[in-house]
């Protein structure tokens, strides 16, 4: 795998081509090779703009490699070159790979702001290069299995990166959560703070905009939730991972002066005595020996916020406090934290207890006989537990992966052809694959349902009936509750969720 980031506005003159490169993985590749990857990418971006000026190159598919393109910011491109192994040859999930690029970019922006702004701050490019290298390397280490990077493949076609997974809660618990959220926001003494409540690796409530919610949720699941803290590595993929980058970490630290922060560095978050999570990633405060609280950038408002995370058993609460509202840095923040503990700790205990009682465990959302993925509005998803998905035959997964590609194309087409009008695609596809499994996709009013039924009977009617049952009872109810939840807890953005 190769991953590069380059800026088309740089290195326009002959001999200065290297200036374009902002990041290249693996870094030890000869410059000539790096430039040839970027040269091809740039050439095709220019070429495709002849015909498609609004949407330039998205993918180059060759016999042995796929090049996946993502224009992260205008003229700043991320390109991932994937070797097609024998296995993934049949179905390389280009869309899933693009979501990887999108995810790492949104995480980068969350902690460092946009790449463009960083380039404007320091035009030589040294600053952004020194930040990108450790950031992306840390991010990629989550994909390591053994010594190999395990990128999304057809095995992962029943999950959706870049979405949040939500906990379904009863009405009573929802009201409890809602009152906790109010208390939290009052504690900060300012109206413009936001909160995110997670139980295990699932989202319970958010007051952030959808995009910021996704970025922060992703980060929380990668590094902050109890699961992430205990495993030291990611928890949201079922694949076993070992980190071989550890050995290189030391040298990395030496190379980069201490100014470069590595928010995705493994095992650097821990729970403090007061229940708040702390990390030495951002160094320690000179005066008080407490660790510095990280600052994140919100996409919608471009505000800078302090990120305070509190954890009680399975409950993780993230509170974002505007930097502008805290006058004296860490001291001011510790006052806010105290305030939160005083006002909300009882409520947090209660909420945790309530949610734990209602929690059905890891297989809570398993529906026997079905292997499914539900995506709502491309932001919220729910899927069969990974362990259950693993029981499916490879053929079924390949067929579904292919079907998802088709549906993505239809979705894209619907978006392109009527961008203004209601672009929701109504589509229902039931395929009986060679191995007899039914592979099903349904999209309706922004909701997508993907399903594999391996033990269904032969007839289409039976399969269709099973889907009907599923979407009428389980899916609808579950998502319905989830909506109520989102509405209750995020009045500001309820329109976006509804």
């Amino acid at each position, binding site marked *: 795998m190769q991953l590069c980031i380059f800026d088309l506005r740089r290195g326009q003159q002959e001999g200065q081509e290297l200036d374009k490169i902002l990041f290249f993985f693996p870094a030890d590749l000869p410059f000539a090779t790096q430039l*040839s990857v970027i*040269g*091809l990418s740039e*050439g*095709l971006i220019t*070429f*495709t*703009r*002849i*015909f*498609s000026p*609004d*949407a*330039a*190159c*998205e*993918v*180059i*598919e*060759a*016999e*042995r*490699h796929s090049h996946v393109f993502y224009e992260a910011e205008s003229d700043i491109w991320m390109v991932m070159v994937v070797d097609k192994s024998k296995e993934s*040859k*049949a*179905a390389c999930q280009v869309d899933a790979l693009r979501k990887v690029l999108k995810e790492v970019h949104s995480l980068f922006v969350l902690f460092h702001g946009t790449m463009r702004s960083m380039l404007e701050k320091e035009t030589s490019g040294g600053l952004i290069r020194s930040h990108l290298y450790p950031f992306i390397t840390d991010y990629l280490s989550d994909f390591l299995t053994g010594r190999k990077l395990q990128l999304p493949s057809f095995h992962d076609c029943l999950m959706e990166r870049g979405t949040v997974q939500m906990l379904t809660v009863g009405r009573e618990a929802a009201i409890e959560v809602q009152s906790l959220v109010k208390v939290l926001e009052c504690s900060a003494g300012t109206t413009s703070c936001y909160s995110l409540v997670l139980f295990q690796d699932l989202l319970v409530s958010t007051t952030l905009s959808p995009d910021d919610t996704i970025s922060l949720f992703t980060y929380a699941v990668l590094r902050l939730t109890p699961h992430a803290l205990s495993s030291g590595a990611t928890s949201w993929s079922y694949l076993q991972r070992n980190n071989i980058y550890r050995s290189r970490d030391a040298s990395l630290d030496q190379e980069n002066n201490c100014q470069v922060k590595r928010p995705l560095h493994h095992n650097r978050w821990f729970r403090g005595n007061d229940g708040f999570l702390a990390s030495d990633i951002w160094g320690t405060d000179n005066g008080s020996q407490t660790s510095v609280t990280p600052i994140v950038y919100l996409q919608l408002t471009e505000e800078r916020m302090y990120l305070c995370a509190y954890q009680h058993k399975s409950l993780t609460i993230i509170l974002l406090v505007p930097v502008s509202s805290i006058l004296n840095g860490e001291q001011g923040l510790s006052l806010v934290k105290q305030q939160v503990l005083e006002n909300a700790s009882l409520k947090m205990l209660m909420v945790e207890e309530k949610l734990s009682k209602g929690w059905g465990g890891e297989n809570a959302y398993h529906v026997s006989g079905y292997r499914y993925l539900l995506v709502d509005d491309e932001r919220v998803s729910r899927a069969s537990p990974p362990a259950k998905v693993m029981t499916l035959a490879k*053929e079924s997964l*390949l*067929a579904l992966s*292919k*079907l998802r590609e*088709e549906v993505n*194309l*239809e979705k*894209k*087409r619907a978006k*392109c052809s009527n961008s203004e009008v209601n672009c929701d*695609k*109504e*589509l*229902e*596809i*039931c*395929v*009986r*694959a*060679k191995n*007899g499994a039914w592979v099903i996709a349904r999209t309706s009013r922004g909701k997508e349902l993907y399903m594999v039924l391996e033990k269904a009977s032969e007839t*289409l*009617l039976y399969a*269709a009936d099973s889907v009907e049952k599923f979407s009428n009872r389980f899916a609808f109810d579950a998502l319905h509750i989830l909506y109520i939840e989102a509405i209750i807890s995020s009045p500001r953005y309820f329109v976006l969720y509804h």
Partner: protein
Amino acid sequence: MSSSDSSSSSASDDPNPKLKPQPLESQFQSSLTLEDSDGVARTDDASVAEQQQEQQDEGSGNGSVDGVVNVEDNGHRDSSDREEGIGSGEARDGDGGSGGGGGVVWRRANSEVELEVEAPASPSSSGYAGGRGSSGASSASRADDASEEDEIEVVGNDDGGAVGAPDSQAEWTPGKRHVDEDDASISWRKRKKHFFILSNSGKPIYSRYGDEHKLAGFSATLQAIISFVENGGDRVKYVKAGMHQVVFLVKGPIYLVCISCTEEPFESLVAQLELVYGQMILILTKSLNRCFEKNPKFDMTPLLGGTDVVFSALIHSFSWNPAAFLHAYACLPLPYATRQAAGAILQDVADSGVLFALLMCKHRVGTSLKVISLVGAQKASLHPDDMLLLGNFIMSSESFRQVTSESFSPICLPRYNPMAFLHAYVHYFDADTYLILLTTRSDAFYHLKDCRIRIETVLLKSNVLSEVQRSTLDGGMRVEDLSVDLQQHTGSTSRVEDKPHTETPERIRESSLVGLGGPAGLWHFLYRSVYLDQYVSSEFSSPINTHRQQKRLYRAYQKLYVSMHSKGIGPHKTQFRRDENYVLLCWVTPDFELYAAFDPLADKALAIKTCNKVCQWVKDVENEIFLLGASPFSW
């Protein structure tokens, strides 16, 4: 319409058109042809004398004056470049002395284009437009069709037709259009589907739109992309950008590229490029690779001179001919006995040294060419793709289309033997029905002519030609009939043989205007017999009655086909797909494939039941809609 029409009608009206004197216009047409060929012909080969001698002998032998013998040499091919000597096919002066209708014209392909241009109302252009599904269309509706042709934006009249043809004509002409454009033109960039052929040194060979010479820079870019990836030890397959796809196909020294925003899947586009390449092989044989071995900068454009029409007609057919993606051919529905009679005489001929004998016709609604009968000698088998390419070559080339004329042309069947030329004898019995005799012998013209005369006599005697005319008028299977007489259907497509149902076509046509479809909302179906390599398609019924709707349905089928046959995991068994346009049902078994389109509100259970009925219906009438026992692969 001009001469071809009048002569075709006379041919069909008269039970024995052979004895009829040649209409005056036809004679004029043929002398025009002669003049035309004079411009490019040479007389410097000894074989000419022989040929002429032979021809004179022959001519005096049977006293036939029934038309011009067009022996066509497609392009300025150098005889040294050929796999088989076809010296006799080299462009020659017909020594116009024979005059009138008896002359043998050894004509070059490029004169064909000129002819077409000089005669704007040429039968080829109008016949072709009529052949694409707008039966009896007025010129206004043709203009409508033309504007639809794969373009995002209607580009006004700012561009000339083929090689400076008068632009007053609004019809779709199979020739090259928009020659004024190049890659800098906005209109060119917005065309929905480009096709390019170039050499591995980046020299343009063919472009669907725009002048190849002006596209040299663009060609070089395409070549650079391909070779850049190749230098990295890889081979580029496609590039996607927004709704656009750039698909690459490398065939030795020939590069083919398609740039499309038609939403057709990659697999379809690559298959289309394969067909375009096949069409080129059909004209030149694969031995052209050797020219590139000798000289990498070899310029191929003169070899293909004048064949633009062939490529543009083929590319055009990708939007309406199911044969292009089903890899199967269609037969004209005929009573079993009639087809047997036609097959018997073709078989008779095949036993006398003809490699393949094909009796074909253009269907009334013109969705595709249809086979009446076909026979191969001994173990020879004909691939459906070869039939598609051969049919396209013959139907799109003006020179073949002169009714009652004869043509003899070297062609290559890429799936049969890509290295060698065969020789095709082509004769139109009337405007729609024609005979192709293929042989390996370049000197077999007069033998084939004899064969044709024998065949024609038998066909006339056994009324095959009039049955063909009747069938083209009546059309094929109609979804409406499925509901009408599911019980009373006794194994016949009421269209074909039965006298009692003679009013049915009219009734149905009326009702289809009102907007009935079949039962359970069935709008259309395609049925492909896997073993026979044949397919049958129902007639378009309401509401699929405009060209645009037909094209959309065609594309939906094409997508469904690719989805069902996806590489590595396919074929799937069944598929049900509902979107805002249709309910599509597909069923693939080892014996057949069924593709059916229903109203989007159709009930699932009823649709399935209806599909079963359709399959039963097809099986009941397979004697009439398929060519049985003579499958090109079953010997």
